[in-house]
């Protein structure tokens, strides 16, 4: 355990070594939130208006929720893994008595901890500036569900990244492309990071809910907003748990195969 505590520690320091990078990444997040905020703010300019079951307070809470949940779920250091597989830096870890998966998970958590601190500060600041109506969830059952769904979301996203990071074992030149597909297309569109998924046609929704992606952002926020009944909550948690387990085994198998043909490039 002490091993991973040390990894956490050095990873934290590393983030600070790239102060400017980090700040720019946060600025990007804030701008994104502002964009989405003003978009929805103008749609709901009439406070009486309810669209797709969202009123002004709930949609704006959703937008602010994205800021926090994003910081938790989508800020992952493990995006570097594909590059390490492609250029052979992976070797550095394979020859050490440390679990590569746990190593990166620790680095992720460390990065998330830092991001979270900033996200909270930003949220408070934006809150003071924009003064949006904000929905505070007080039901402990929903709050518990929120925490569990967030934990599952972090895990699913992490495992997804590791699966696509294994592609360079076979095709070392597509390291960046693989991550692009996962991060840009899947997580931005299908996770609910740009818009709440329940505004889509029902047929599409039905399919999406069977996939792991809505459980990254959309589902945890729905839980927080209290939009789900107990059955729906349980169903959602079960599906995301199912995906977490399935993807975990898939990742194990893909990495097992990948490591056998690993070339340990870089000399």
């Amino acid at each position, binding site marked *: 355990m*002490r*091993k991973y*505590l*040390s*990894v956490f520690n*050095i990873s934290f*320091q*590393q983030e600070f*070594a*790239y102060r400017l990078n980090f700040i720019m990444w946060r600025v990007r997040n804030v701008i994104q939130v502002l964009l989405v905020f003003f978009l929805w703010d103008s749609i709901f300019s009439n406070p009486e208006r309810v669209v797709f079951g969202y009123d002004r307070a709930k949609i704006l809470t959703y937008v602010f929720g994205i800021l926090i949940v994003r910081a938790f779920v989508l800020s992952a250091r493990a995006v570097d893994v594909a590059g390490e597989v492609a250029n*052979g*830096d992976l*070797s*550095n870890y*394979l*020859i*050490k*008595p*440390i679990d590569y998966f746990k190593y990166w998970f620790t680095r992720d958590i460390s990065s998330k901890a830092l991001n979270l601190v900033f996200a909270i500060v930003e949220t408070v600041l934006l809150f003071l500036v924009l003064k949006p109506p904000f929905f505070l969830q007080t039901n402990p059952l929903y709050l518990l569900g929120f925490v569990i769904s967030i934990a599952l979301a972090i895990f699913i996203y992490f495992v997804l990244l590791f699966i696509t990071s294994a592609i360079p074992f076979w095709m070392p030149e597509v390291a960046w492309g693989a991550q692009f597909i996962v991060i840009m297309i899947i997580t931005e569109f299908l996770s609910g990071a740009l818009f709440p998924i329940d505004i889509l046609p029902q047929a599409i929704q039905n399919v999406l809910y069977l996939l792991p992606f809505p459980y990254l952002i959309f589902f945890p926020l729905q839980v927080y907003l209290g939009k789900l009944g107990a059955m729906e909550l349980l169903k959602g948690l079960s599906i995301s748990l199912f995906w977490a387990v399935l993807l975990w085994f898939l990742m194990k198998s893909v990495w097992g195969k990948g*490591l*056998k*043909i*690993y*070339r*340990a490039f*870089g*000399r």
Partner: protein
Amino acid sequence: MSGVILLKMEKAIVVNRLVKNFEITEKKPGLSGAVSSIFRPKKKTVRALKGISFTIQPGELVGFIGPNGAGKTTTLKILSGLLYPTSGFTQVLEYNPWDRKHEFLKQISLVMGQKNQLWWDLPAIETFKLTQAIYEIPQKEYEKNLSELVELLQVSKLLNVQVRGLSLGQRMRLELIAALLYKPKVLFLDEPTIGLDLVGQQKVRDFIYEYNKKTGATILLTSHNMNDLVDLARRVIVIDEGNLIFDGALEELVHRFAKEKIIKVYLSSEEDVNKMRTIGKIRKITFPLVTLVVPRTTVAVAAAEILQNFPVTDLTIEEIPVEEVIRKVFKGK
């Protein structure tokens, strides 16, 4: 305690009929080639190791020689568990490297001259602390090992400098510390002196020698730098195109492959040196020194003949330098 284990363990490294093939995709040049390789990838099998066998005793320091692409680095990577062997048997400290058991990894170290494990943006001391945690080195032992290594490699002033600000030679010495902090019993060094200046090379060489002597660690080292091998390795293994072509003492390599010897003659007066051409090949004349190459079998006769017929002030018989011998070995195929 470790002495007992060493006595019980017969071989530190066993390699038996080791084969490694790589599948590579060939690409034709240009854009159309790139596109066609996506749809109809042309696979080609590269046979990096074609069944090599050798064993190494605990405490031995063995040099691994071969031209680029001979399979040296591939062998080291298999022995440290990075690559999955196609077939054959490998055992290091009685473990199968591929299993990458933590108890095994704690006892070996692989240093690649062109790869760094130090955290680029932080001072080296941070990487060392992380290494301590990963290898679970007790605090006292860590402090002792660190101060020993720091003194041996003379880097006490560099520990708190951001790694990116260091020169290659300074970094290489710190890399060695990170690789040795946990006192590995088996050490794989891949081109440890590459890119270093002469002083830096010597420092690293001296250190490897000291480390081997002091700790009794088994060391397998590859290098293109013949000085590394002449200085360090009693025994060398030569591989070429995936085959083992020599395994034995360095001197024996010279005996086996160098069919000639060198005679250096100092003359007292400028005679007609051309007459020497009947005795051997004249390689260089820088009066008063004449350098001749003669067949190994007739070297004594040749020397006697020179002493009789020329005004000699000094005469020495030497082996052809290892570097030259090895160059010939690889050219001679």
